[in-house]
């Protein structure tokens, strides 16, 4: 066979070899920064099988959707959708069995939300670098629902997967102090946490409520004013901030 006829085939072999070698090199030099697909959380609703379908946690049956997202290379977006499910679940009125949990009608996040940790975990399995999900999940569990162990479990997972993200450790310390009832030790840590721009508003509102309960109205007012200034996306928080600012100004005689 003359050389010019073999040239396309030889070039093809060279290109395929070069691209495969490059793929091999990329693979050897970098660890893919995500857990393998078998660590995805598929069946949160399994724990709630005894409940009628309308009472199961909202959005807890999206395991195959998560897998589909990975197949299409849409990992972050799939994590976002799982995150929206968390917000939808935590922001909805929780039904326990056949009866409405009336408490949850009155205040956001005041239901039991048994699947919360699992749902947050499902989100961060998809995207372990979704720091906000860890902070929000742990903050809700610890400061709203008093489920310290679950919050710590979530943060430990976060630390393991993001060893350089030191703020998780700050939250761990604050939660441990809260678990022990040592508010004087916890408050400075939370004060430090809320100074960072990526701190969830939920943590700010929790700290403001703690200050208010401890009759430190001036600091509580400052925090709520800060919430009003920085929170633009959530109308519930803004409303809550406006109400609290009114009350606290009254208490302070302003």
């Amino acid at each position: 066979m003359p050389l010019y006829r073999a040239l396309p085939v030889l070039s093809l072999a060279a290109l395929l070899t070069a691209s495969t070698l490059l793929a091999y090199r990329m693979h050897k030099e970098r660890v893919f920064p995500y857990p393998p697909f078998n660590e995805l959380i598929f069946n949160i609703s399994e724990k709630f099988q005894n409940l009628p379908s309308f009472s199961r946690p909202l959005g807890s049956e999206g395991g195959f959707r998560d897998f589909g997202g990975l197949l299409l290379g849409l990992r972050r977006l799939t994590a976002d959708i799982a995150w929206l499910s968390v917000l939808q679940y935590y922001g909805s009125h929780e039904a326990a069995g056949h009866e409405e949990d009336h408490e949850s009608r009155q205040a956001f996040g005041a239901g039991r939300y048994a699947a919360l940790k699992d749902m947050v975990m499902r989100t961060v399995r998809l995207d372990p670098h979704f720091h906000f999900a860890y902070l929000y999940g742990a903050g809700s569990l610890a400061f709203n629902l008093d489920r310290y162990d679950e919050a710590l479990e979530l943060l430990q997972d976060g630390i393991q997967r993001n060893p350089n993200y030191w703020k998780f450790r700050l939250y761990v310390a604050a939660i441990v102090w809260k678990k022990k009832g040592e508010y004087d030790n916890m408050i400075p840590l939370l004060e430090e946490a809320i100074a960072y721009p990526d701190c969830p508003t939920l943590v700010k509102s929790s700290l403001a409520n703690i200050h208010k309960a401890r009759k430190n109205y001036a600091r509580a007012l400052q925090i709520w004013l800060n919430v009003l200034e920085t929170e633009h996306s959530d109308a519930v928080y803004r409303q809550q901030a406006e109400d609290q600012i009114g009350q606290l100004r009254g208490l302070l005689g302003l």
Partner: protein
Amino acid sequence: MKLSNILPLARYTFVGSFRSKIFLVLILFGVLLLLSSFLLSILGQEQEIRVLTDLGLASIEILALFTSIFLMVNLILEQIEQRTLYLVLTRSVSRAEYLLGNYFGTLAAIFACVVLMTLLHAGILLFKGWDIRAEGLVYFASVFTSFEKIVLVSALGLFFSIFSTSAVSALVFTIFLWISGHFAVELKFLAGRLEDGALKTLFKGIYYLVPHFHYLNARDIWISYSSQFGRMIAEGTLYTALYSAAALLLAHLSFRKKEF
């Protein structure tokens, strides 16, 4: 190979794409998708910008993917069926020039579509208070690597359409490679869990052979390798160039002896 043949073909294909109703409908659909992401992202509350960014980047990529697969798979087959290629191939245009002209013209049309959607999306993000100085580089690099995926998958689509001479099977093969390319790393993981044997070798073989789209997902992996970001983009670009060239060469080998 003459550039003076490739350029008119590319220009003609580019203009033809923009005048096709289906292409314009796809662009309109993309614009609507972006506008709807504007609404959906509100649900993300404090993570609104993140949701809006991810949703927009995914919309741009998926729409570009659909457009590219649809256009590439039908590109040559339609010209064979309508016999419009007779009047090109009976001139002094080589088959390789014909393929490249059509390929680059279609890619240019998709690129224009991606640029249009990116500008719209970036505009929405800025309107929402996005910090372009902090995240702009990663954002535009993500769009760039997304387009690299499109370059690669388009070359594969073109090859399959010529090789299989059926738009449906070409579509299936191309989508299969899109999926397995994103899942390649998981195939490697599965191979690692298997005992030594044929299946393990097969999985490993597939891992190295399928296009590694996961390394072109800058929007996903930048966070872990921010210090090596430039190098990753360079390697990804080289990889895209090599792999696409291989796919185009395969397309050429299938096309050069084809009869009409």
